């Protein structure tokens, strides 16, 4: 009959591990992406923009802090630089990651290669995972490339290593979720263009839309800590507000830094309400990571389900 090429059919567990470690889609994507000068041109452009922005921020901050006290508050300079870099990285991550993944599945259909993939033994999970990991690797490259710039902030002090690590965690979680959303829309849409639009709209909602909505609601109802009499309402409000803010990367980053500075913790801390009661709150990066990773898993499963269903 047919000649065997010396490969035994793999059992389920080994096969699944292979999706991560020896993923054909991952290899193909990386080979193609890093070919030629394109990948390095993007990296250079990104670093130039980041560097230029950092330079400008430095000049602005150094100028103002000098003029106030006659003596530069270096700690503040360091912190401001750090925050600016993270802010730019956040924007880039929110909008570069989808650019890579919005064409994941729809691109294959547009190039008429999707049917070829479907008749192989490649599973939908392996396909989606390969697309995700290859795009995340490039995002990781961009984030790591910015670390030297971030380290300039260390020269000025005011920034702890913990903040660097936490900012990384927040950025990676953001990139993961938005990349996965990109793949999901790519599986839904026939065209990469519509997938891109949908992904960007979603990313914008998470980064800008939600805070604006919350801010609007707060203003509308005239909330301020003084207006609230009952402890329960105050409690509910704090938790709900905290929860919602934990879905926003920028708010999470800022609040986490605030908590770190004022409460000296990256974990739980106590907070006294106006009635005198103390409650336990948690640094936002923890619920943020949990929410984003859970959403990533859910959207990943939805994307795989969608890919399975495609029948031209």
């Amino acid at each position, binding site marked *: 009959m*047919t000649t*065997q090429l010396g*490969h035994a059919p793999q059992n389920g567990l080994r096969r699944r591990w292979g999706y991560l470690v020896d993923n*054909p889609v991952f290899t*193909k994507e990386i080979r*193609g992406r890093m070919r030629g000068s394109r990948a390095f041109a993007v990296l250079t452009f990104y670093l130039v923009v980041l560097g230029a922005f950092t330079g400008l921020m430095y000049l602005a901050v150094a100028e103002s802090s000098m003029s106030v006290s006659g003596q530069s508050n270096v700690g503040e300079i360091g912190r401001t630089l750090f925050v600016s870099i993270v802010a730019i990285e956040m924007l880039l991550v929110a909008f570069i990651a989808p650019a890579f993944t919005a064409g994941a599945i729809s691109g294959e259909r547009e190039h*008429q290669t999707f049917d*070829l993939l479907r008749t192989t*033994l490649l599973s939908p999970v392996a396909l989606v995972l390969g697309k995700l990991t290859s795009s995340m690797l490039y995002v990781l490259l961009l984030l790591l490339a910015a670390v030297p710039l971030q380290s300039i902030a260390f020269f000025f002090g005011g920034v702890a290593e913990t903040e660097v690590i936490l900012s990384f965690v927040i950025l990676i979680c953001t990139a993961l979720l938005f990349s996965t959303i990109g793949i999901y829309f790519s599986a839904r849409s026939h065209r990469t263009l519509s997938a891109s639009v949908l992904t960007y709209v979603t990313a914008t909602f998470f980064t800008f839309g939600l805070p604006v909505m919350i801010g609007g609601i707060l203003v509308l109802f005239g909330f301020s800590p003084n207006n609230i009499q009952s402890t329960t309402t105050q409690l509910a409000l704090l938790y709900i507000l905290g929860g919602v803010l934990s879905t926003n990367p920028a708010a999470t980053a800022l609040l986490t830094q605030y908590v770190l500075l004022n409460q000296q913790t990256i974990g739980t801390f106590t907070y006294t309400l106006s009635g005198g009661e103390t409650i336990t709150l948690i640094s936002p990066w923890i619920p943020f990571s949990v929410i984003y990773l859970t959403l990533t898993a859910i959207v990943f499963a939805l994307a795989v389900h969608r890919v399975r269903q495609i029948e*031209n």
Partner: protein
Amino acid sequence: MAEELIIETHGLVKRYGKLVAVNNLSLQVPRGAIYGFVGPNGAGKTTTMRILTTLITPTAGDAYVAGYSVVDYPREVRRAIGYMPDFFGVYDDMKVWEYLDFFAACYEIPERDRPGLINDLLALVDLSHRRDDMVEKLSRGMKQRLSLARTLAHDPEVLILDEPASGLDPRARIEIRELLVEMSRMGKTIFFSSHILADVAEICTHLGIIESGEMVAQGTVADIRRQLMPTREIQITLLGQVEQAKETLLHVEGVTGINDMPDDHGRRRIRVDFTGDDEGVSQLLFALSSRGIPVVNFAEETHDLETVFMRATKGIVS
């Protein structure tokens, strides 16, 4: 005749709303055959192939490839087939060897086996000298050959090829044909569709003629010829005595008709429709020459597949 069927369908139906693309199709492809699936454009060839390759689910009926149901065991079916659609999907920024490496990996071929496999495949389709070139830069003929190499990566039992020679120049078409014959010699079953009958006639052992989603005729090439062209046609060129010839022939058993044909350089020609066997044909010649009728040329017309095809299909396109 219990031949092992490597592809079979029973009452296969595929409906798209009101349109019936495949209508009660029963396909039988024996193992080791080179099966030509022919029909006019829009007859349902591609739809049938896409059902067999697990890309579409049928509306009704069953389809089995290598013993596995396409609906219940798609993974096993995919392991057994190599599919080549009638378009070449191009990846940007990919080398020829990387293309084969990628698909070999998709078929779970271990990394250590791949380099050797890629070399063998490239040698088989004669693309070794282009291994480091970009896939998108290849000529159409080379892309077809590369596509064919890809279908062989996991050593499947059956190759399902949709119009493998479409858009190719004559030389490239011959190259593909030779590759298909080579692969048949390697023990594989070849199931391919075409509307270039010359290609089909050259190499097929079996034929399936489809029109408007239905199978019109199916079987070995000889069977189909016999089925659709039951009478033999014998062309006779005479120097003279045409009326005597006709008179004589009409008395021979098995002659169903005699028609005049255009003259050939002043020599008269007639065509005899005959239902007898080879013995009978030689009797015809004897009957004429024994009466001294001057026969210059006596030959049986073997019908090319085109005529068979034209007779079988009514040219109805859905």
